[in-house]
């Protein structure tokens, strides 16, 4: 299969490979897998609790070149965005950017799922805090 130049670039120089401290409340971890091919991807974010901006993103992917490129690109894109903004990223954006062929679309889906899972994990960890804030607001009214 011929990979696009962008895929090859991300594959050869993956951005943001690594890991963040899973136990930190500021860190959200998403671990997802594509059962079609047996690939796994871990994507982590560190969110600024004040601004909700994703300040750091790391990934580790055991999978094909497109999955590595998709997750590498995903970490680049979510860095500097707010959590809500990051949720808006669609796998189709990744497909377009990397020119993925149809058989490789599920690799981009994996990256989108990983972003959502990481944010979901972070929200779950900080759910209590958010509710407390909401309660405060409600009381103030």
């Amino acid at each position, binding site marked *: 299969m011929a990979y696009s130049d962008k895929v090859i670039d991300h594959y050869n120089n993956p951005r943001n490979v690594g890991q963040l401290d899973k136990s930190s409340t500021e860190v959200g971890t998403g671990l997802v897998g594509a*059962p079609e091919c*047996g690939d*796994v991807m*871990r994507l982590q974010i560190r969110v600024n609790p004040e601004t909700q901006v994703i300040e750091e993103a790391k990934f580790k992917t055991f999978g094909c070149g497109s999955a590595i490129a998709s997750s590498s690109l995903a970490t680049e894109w979510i860095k500097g965005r707010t959590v809500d903004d990051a949720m808006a990223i669609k796998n189709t954006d990744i497909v377009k950017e990397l020119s993925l062929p149809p058989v490789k*679309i*599920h690799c981009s889906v994996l990256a989108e799922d990983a972003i959502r899972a990481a944010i979901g994990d972070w929200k779950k960890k900080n759910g209590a805090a958010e509710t407390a804030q909401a309660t405060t607001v409600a009381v103030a009214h």
Partner: protein
Amino acid sequence: MFKVLDSAVPIACWSCSIGHNDSTLFCPHCSKIQPPPGGDYFSVFGLEPRLGLDLPALEHEFHRLSRKVHPDRFARAGENERQWSLADTALLNDAYRTLKDPLHRTEYLLKLEGAEIGPDLSAESAAADGKDRKDPSRVPADLLEEVFELNMQLEEMRMARKMGETDAGLQPSLEQAKRRFDGLLVEVDQNLRIQWQVWDEGDAAARKKAEKTMVGLLDRRRYLSNLVRDVTETLGA
């Protein structure tokens, strides 16, 4: 005169016009060759969908039918019959290849039953807008954790080897990893066989449950065989 299969749709024979199941390569009435039937692979061999198959019997039936539809026999037949013998031969080969392999057979049957399983990476099934996506929660979290962890360990060993590390412990630990993955694979296959039996003998509810379990086992199997492939590669390097 012939067994009616649920999955088969009756159609009229092109030659004698008598209706028969759309699952047979030859008309049961006039014995003329038929266009490739639209029934499932099992019905081509006159079988109900089943996971535990009598493989020698299947092979025997395959050879018998192959001889019957062989294009050589239709060299002097009409244009249609000649085409059908080619198409039927191709269908018969596909059906046999799918059914004789235990994993392909299981995946095929699960798909027949409407289960969503890989590795269906075909362009038609992968909708570009992602609407058609598979349920991401299908892979259990603990399996992902385990697979990820195993991959990490394996990578560490490979890195160490690449750095030319002459750690005497490396080779044995790789071999141990391989044995472990192989063992896990064997376990999955044993569990699959148990589910085959549940499916073959169960009622609709038991079948549905077995189907779900098998989808999970096949997912697990795919992850494990990737690991086996990677560790074997590393050992061979």
